[in-house]
């Protein structure tokens, strides 16, 4: 499996990517490829450039004048910054942030927002999407009787799952998960992880996580980021069985630092 995959199998092609905030370097000279329909894990301690990488894919750098991106990120062969309609790009790329953001709308409207933006108007269609996405995010049973109450009033863990449902409602072909389980209890985390394994059939998933074991459970391949450097990209099992090229990777995976 290791080696250069055929171009048709590459979902995201990262070439010499570097990210700076002002003079501070968040990620330097990173190149790797993410394949279609794989779960690609990114592990590493805080401040290693994981979140910056996700923000660059989704063009979230537009919010931050200070953020500079060099190199290339090719999504299905097209550089993301050459996409004229950034909104269309974002509709294809779902994001789940580490801190849950329940928009101050009803639970139903939170999930229906994205389909509505994309032009779905029929109540019946929206009902189907809302139920399917909430079910997949393991939230449907808890909220099905109060879909009209405010999404921002849910508990932290529930809001996190609402965010996941919202990201799924876009029907993205690339899903970016940034520490999705940080506010979710272990049982629910397991349920969501099962869903992610199924979603792999439909989309490519990039999973940024602090939980090394979560990467091991889910990711097909995993990258190890350390202070702005992509130290290692390898089959996840190799990472955990010590078949790595860099000593720092196995040190981190085995919990000797970080």
């Amino acid at each position, binding site marked *: 499996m290791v080696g250069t995959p055929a171009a048709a199998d590459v979902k995201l092609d990262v070439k010499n990517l570097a990210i700076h905030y002002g003079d501070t370097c968040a990620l330097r000279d990173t190149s790797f490829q993410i394949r279609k329909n794989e779960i690609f894990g990114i592990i590493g301690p805080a401040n290693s450039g994981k979140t910056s990488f996700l923000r660059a894919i*989704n063009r*979230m750098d537009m*919010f931050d*004048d200070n953020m500079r991106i060099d190199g290339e990120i090719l999504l299905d062969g097209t550089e993301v910054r050459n996409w004229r309609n950034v*909104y*269309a*790009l*974002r*509709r*294809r790329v779902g*994001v789940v*942030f580490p*801190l849950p*953001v329940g*928009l*101050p*709308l009803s639970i139903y409207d939170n999930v229906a*927002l*994205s389909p509505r*933006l*994309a032009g779905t108007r029929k109540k019946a269609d929206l009902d189907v999407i809302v139920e399917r996405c909430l079910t997949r995010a393991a939230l449907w049973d808890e909220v099905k009787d109060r879909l009209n109450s*405010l999404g*921002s009033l849910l508990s932290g863990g529930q809001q996190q799952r609402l*965010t996941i449902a*919202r*990201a799924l409602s*876009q029907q993205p072909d690339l899903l970016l998960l940034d520490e999705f389980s940080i506010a979710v209890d272990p049982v629910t985390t397991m349920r969501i992880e099962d869903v992610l394994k199924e979603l792999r059939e439909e989309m490519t998933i990039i999973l940024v996580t602090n939980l090394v074991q979560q990467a091991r459970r889910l990711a097909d391949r995993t990258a190890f980021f350390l202070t702005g450097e992509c130290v290692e990209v390898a089959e996840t099992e190799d990472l955990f069985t010590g078949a790595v090229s860099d000593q720092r990777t196995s040190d981190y995976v085995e919990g000797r630092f970080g």
Partner: protein
Amino acid sequence: MAHNAGALDRRDTAWYVDKAVEWLVFIGGISAIIFIVGIFVFIGKEGFGFILGRFDFAEFFFSPRWTPTSLTNATYGALALIVGTASVTGFAMLVSVPFSLGAAIYIAEFATGKRRETLKVLIEMLAAIPSVVWGFIGLSLMNPLIISVFNVPLGLNVLNAGIILGLMAAPIMTTIAEDALKAVPDGYREAAEALGATRWQVIRQVVLPAAKNGLVAAVLLGVGRGFGETMAVLMATGHSINIPSSIFDPVRALTATIATELGETAEGSEHYQALFALGILLFAVTFVINLTADLFVRGIKDK
């Protein structure tokens, strides 16, 4: 041990300073309430004499005849004055609400860096222009302009005062509305943009609903400002008692009536007391408007 116990039992300087500051700010806080009550008692003492004695409910609220100086048959119908104030304020809101909400949305959501700061400073400067200057603009600039543009005999009317008052209320409404928009967490905007919403979609679907209460409060405070404004309205309305049938009719405002007539009445006379009754009416209206605005602002915090 004994030494420690003594220290615990002794009030030191910090303790006294703390108590003194507590009392000082308490007096500052309570004085606002004392002043409000004082104003109410003062206006009430003079006005209730009229309300309990001469006052005729039907005349006061439904007659447009305000002829307090008539020797034979003085009447105190405030309808024309109420309609005058209401029409000018209403027209002012038509002018200022779209402008100030637009300005607030631009400053809070679109403008960045220097442009944003410059705009904010300019708008705050606009709020500091004395009302007599606005009245002067209405009298000497708008008046001839309205006469020549609309070909009407008089340029001091609802239109003139409405525009002037609208421009006066707009900076305050803009500032408060902008605060309300800025109070919406950036996380909401990022989350919505990450879903592929355009800027306008983010504003329309997420930011405006979230800031709704603050925006209503901004408009209400603008209305309160319009109701209470005196000098500019006096100078730009034409100051003639009249129930307007079009925006080109001159009117007279409640506030302007009090301002111009109070100096010419004998203290304690019926006319004098009637003016205080107008004051009570104004006080009650602005009180209700501000209270409503306050309740809306509180609505934000509850959520």
